[in-house]
């Protein structure tokens, strides 16, 4: 499943668009960035409420396919800029992590 297909199936809103043809092969949920950075699998959709500049660094480090900001969590302006600069897809939804992950598990 690609990021693009995930967006269509889950009705996600795009905040930062980079390579939407990237494959999503896994899903990870976490908000403690130092924890996530060593544990999120590559090519995963990372579900979090943390929309700050450090999240972009963590997504880069973990090589996540996309960040999905759940429960309409805010994306900081400088985080948006860094995401555009470093090519990180950022999506958002009003659903919480659990609700979204349940749907994702049926797709990937």
């Amino acid at each position, binding site marked *: 499943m690609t990021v693009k297909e995930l967006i269509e199936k889950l009705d996600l809103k795009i905040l930062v668009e980079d390579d939407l043809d990237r494959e999503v092969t896994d899903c990870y949920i976490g908000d*403690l960035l*130092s924890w996530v950075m060593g544990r999120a699998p590559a090519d995963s959709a990372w579900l979090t409420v943390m929309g700050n*500049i450090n999240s*972009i*660094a*963590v997504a880069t480090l973990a090589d996540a396919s996309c960040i999905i900001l759940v429960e309409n969590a805010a994306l900081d302006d400088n985080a948006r800029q860094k995401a555009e600069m470093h090519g990180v897809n950022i999506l958002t939804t009003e659903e919480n992590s659990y609700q979204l992950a349940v749907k994702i598990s049926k797709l990937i």
Partner: protein
Amino acid sequence: MRELSLNVMDVAQNSVRAEATLVRISVTESDKEDRLTIVIADNGYGMTDEQVQQVIDPFFTTRTTRKVGLGVPLFKLSAEQTGGSFDIQSEKGVGTTTTASYVKSHVDMTPLGDINDTIKILIQCNPDIDFIYTCTTDAGSFTLDTRELREVLGDVALDTPDVLEWIADYLEENTKSIYGGA
């Protein structure tokens, strides 16, 4: 980080890399003021204003193995997410002072963790560097100064097992005395 003492370890290791010979670490905890303040001050080679901006930027690192460095940015985030503050003052050839201040009662407050163990490990791993650790609460304060230990120890190195055990006991006993036996 799950514990702030790990951030202290991380920043102190930056001091070591900056060839500091003296590192001052202080932890000041006040229930009355609802504040926890951590200061790490070294006499290493310091940074320019531009370099200070770079270390708080997660996309800057001196490592060549990866393109992001999150040590300082996550320390900063941990303080700011409690409504506290974070600051780095540095001068080339003089040293660097990093200050993180927390609102203790905030729900996103990260626990301090085992700071005594962190201090002991820093001394153990860097026996040629001097550390001055000061811990202060509303009930009092104590200081461990490795320069004073050296005077007493003479030629005995700080990283010998007996000395390290004494350091661990000293930190534990004094911590108890200013945390009301907790």
